[in-house]
């Protein structure tokens, strides 16, 4: 069944975005990406260690995976840092997509939403296609859209926490408020059922890293997530029934034998 996703004019058949950090080995990362069919992998930029040249090797490796690359500005705490990192990423990776992170709080890794909007504006004006890691705050989201963002990535829960969807109400409100903007739950998802729940809310995709990388069997978990995301998407499109408080018999009452 064809149900493509569109990020800035690029059509994708997979609704799973996979981070590349913390895997036990490159081979297991490759297996997770290929086995799950993840359409996009996120990558970062870090200081190149002169003698080892691990970055160059990693770049060769990641290009071989066949997924699209989404560079991030992880670890940036200021607008200047994030903008400069994005510029450097565009040159190295040769792509204008950027997962924009401007971290505002060290314990929760919550975005600095004020810096995020400012950086998004600067980068959009410079031709970047920005994927902002944000909260589910509607006012911030409006500002991000005004700043040029055509995709929004609200958190489910703090990065790496595995707590799932902390604010289902807020995420549902966001979905209703931005019917035409692709929405990705980024961060905090721990299990496939939580990813399915995000998709059932009508989210367009899910971005995962720790939940897969830190699983006992990352490749198997990546597949489990891929299936959950597909199931959740199908469920959303199938228009689930409304829950109700009282029982309703599913077997017809009409024609019931009188045996009492």
């Amino acid at each position: 069944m064809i149900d493509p996703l569109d990020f800035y004019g690029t059509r994708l058949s997979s609704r799973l975005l996979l981070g590349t950090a913390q895997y036990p080995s490159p081979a297991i990362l490759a297996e997770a990406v290929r086995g799950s069919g993840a359409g996009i992998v996120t990558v970062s930029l870090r200081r190149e260690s002169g003698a080892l040249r691990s970055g160059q090797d990693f770049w060769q490796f990641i290009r071989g995976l066949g997924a699209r690359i989404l560079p991030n500005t992880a670890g940036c705490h200021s607008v200047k840092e994030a903008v400069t990192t994005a510029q450097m990423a565009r040159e190295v990776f040769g792509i204008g997509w950027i997962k924009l992170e401007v971290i505002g709080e060290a314990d929760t890794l919550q975005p600095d939403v004020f810096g995020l909007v400012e950086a998004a504006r600067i980068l959009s004006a410079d031709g970047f296609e920005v994927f902002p890691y944000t909260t589910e705050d509607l006012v911030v989201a409006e500002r991000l859209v005004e700043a040029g963002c055509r995709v929004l990535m609200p958190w489910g829960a703090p990065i790496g926490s595995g707590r799932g969807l902390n604010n289902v109400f807020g995420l549902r409100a966001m979905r209703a408020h931005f019917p035409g903007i692709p929405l990705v739950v980024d961060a905090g998802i721990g299990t496939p059922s939580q990813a399915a729940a995000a998709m059932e809310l009508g989210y367009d995709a899910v971005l995962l890293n720790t939940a897969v990388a830190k699983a006992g069997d990352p490749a198997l978990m990546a597949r489990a997530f891929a299936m959950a995301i597909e199931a959740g998407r199908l469920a959303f499109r199938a228009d689930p029934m409304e829950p109700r408080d009282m029982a309703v018999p599913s077997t017809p009452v009409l024609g019931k034998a009188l045996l009492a």
Partner: protein
Amino acid sequence: MTLIINGEARDVAAPSLAALLEALELDAAVVATAVNGRFVRRADRMVTLLAEGDAIEILAPMQGG
């Protein structure tokens, strides 16, 4: 000349950013560079002259989430 390269003070004789990458034997196509906190494009590395105490950042692709 002492330069701060990725946070470490090093003594390198390299007049320009391009020369520095060559001295460090880094593949110029795979790294991104900044001098004193400002991004320097690949095309500008030849004409970016370095001075004593400059802070150079040389970044490369890494795992990320």
